[in-house]
């Protein structure tokens, strides 16, 4: 099993945090993982992207050339990374911010209105957690309880009250995918 994921979004949409939490969760489940963030000149409002590789085997290059999954939070991100798709890749689009785009037919596409769902829950920044829920409902990469305990670890002190809404957001993401399957 090897899963290569590129996460990308506007700086501030929480892709760094999401990627790190997934990496931590799979590490705790004794899988190999590399997480390679873009760094340096990223600014709020610019595109920030992350390469995440999870495998049962040893991981050599942490740089992804062909992705199994893209998690794209806004249009510029999708335009930048659509070239990394291969046949049967999974594409998770935040449809609240990525409207009409042409997607190759061979790709499994999941349009998740993550920003809207998070907004309905009362906290727009939880859109990353909606995407995680949706992604994992399809790919089943991590155990959600492990993920949530990693999340709880970073939401300490003043941030502790935000755990509830983030957990809800994960659940809504899962539900969204499961309901659309039916």
């Amino acid at each position, binding site marked *: 099993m090897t899963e290569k994921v590129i996460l990308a979004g506007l700086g501030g949409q929480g892709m760094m945090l999401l990627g*790190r939490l997934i*990496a*931590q969760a799979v*590490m*705790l489940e004794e899988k*190999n*993982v*590399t*997480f*390679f*963030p873009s*760094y*340096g*000149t990223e600014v709020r409002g610019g595109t920030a992207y992350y390469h995440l590789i999870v495998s049962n085997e*040893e991981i*050599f*290059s*942490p*740089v992804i*050339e062909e992705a199994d999954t893209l998690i794209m939070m806004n249009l510029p991100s999708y335009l930048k990374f659509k070239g990394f798709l291969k046949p049967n890749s999974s594409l998770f689009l935040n449809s609240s911010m990525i409207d009409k785009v042409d997607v190759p037919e061979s790709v499994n596409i999941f349009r998740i209105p993550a920003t809207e769902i998070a907004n309905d829950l009362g906290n727009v920044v939880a859109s990353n957690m909606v995407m995680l829920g949706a992604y994992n409902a399809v790919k089943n990469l991590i155990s959600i309880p492990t993920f949530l305990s990693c999340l709880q670890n970073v939401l300490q002190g003043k941030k502790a009250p935000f755990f509830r809404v983030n957990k809800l957001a994960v659940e809504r993401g899962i539900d969204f995918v499961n309901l659309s399957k039916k």
Partner: protein
Amino acid sequence: MSTNKDQKFLLTGNEASAEAAILAGCRYYYGYPITPQNEIMTHMSIRMPQVGGTFIQVESELAAIYMVYGSAAAGGRTMTSSSSPGISLKQEGISYLAGSELPCVIINMQRGGPGLGDISPAQSDYFQAVKGGGHGDYHTIVLAPSSVQEAADLVFDAFDLADCYTNPVMILGDAQLGQMMEPVIFDKKQKTDLSAKTWALTGARGRKRNIVKSFYPVKGELEVFNTKLQKKYREVEAEEVRYEEIDTQNADIVIVAYGTSARICREVLRDAKKKNLKIGMIRPITLWPFPSVIIGRVAERVQSMLTVEMSAGQMIEDVRLSVNGKCPVHFYGRTGGGIPSPKEILNKIIELSTIKEKVTCATS
């Protein structure tokens, strides 16, 4: 940070290097910010106060390296870190440290050059690191990690090597290694009984005074000192060479690569096997002393060697010296922050195997 032996941490190469230094007993860190190694400084700024150490964000790279000089002369375990342009600025101080036989650790998370370059990964400071970037006949011991775990382990070893040979040790990483996160375990034992530094400047009351210097104005004294220094370097060359040898036994072509390039080449090895190509690899872990003997030995039984670097070709000179004409040595490299992809390297290997066929046809 907990030091529970089996606990895994998800850390960047930068953070893991810094934490390993703390665990190795480093208590004096001086640095000036530069991407892509800032997480080393950040981690040190948090950890040093916790362990009673000294962290100073200094006014320049020169100040950093000379504060390292001072702490080393006083017998402390000390470190500085930077990235390529900043390491260039430290070269004078590194020469002085080597000339004064002072132990310290210097981390270079290389970025693209020359000049201010960019902040992408590169391996174009090889010459500077292994040939002595400053003036005079000296060497730093140069260690090249290729994973976050190895970064932690080698930083730990670097402090012991520095003390053992009273010599600066450089960790030659790159932006990719510094920025990427991987699980890491800190299972090396913390040194509690650091060997006494009888030469250190600790106050001379009740003993003969110690002198730390790199200045020998009396004619002849400097040559005597250099002879002693060279004797030490020969000892390092005899005792401290480290490398990893993979599938070289029946290989037709052997790749020589270090650090991030080596990591990418491991993937090439796996892909080549699927294509029934017999490819091996030698990964130097010490860049100085260089694993010349093993490379020379393997060169006798292979068709050719391929050096892969994120530079225009620097380590290849040492590979050629080691091979000494026993087989052709080819090169594949990317420059200015370009990272070679496994596909590119595999294509180069396929090209090389075709050359071999052509030669066979011509001679038969």
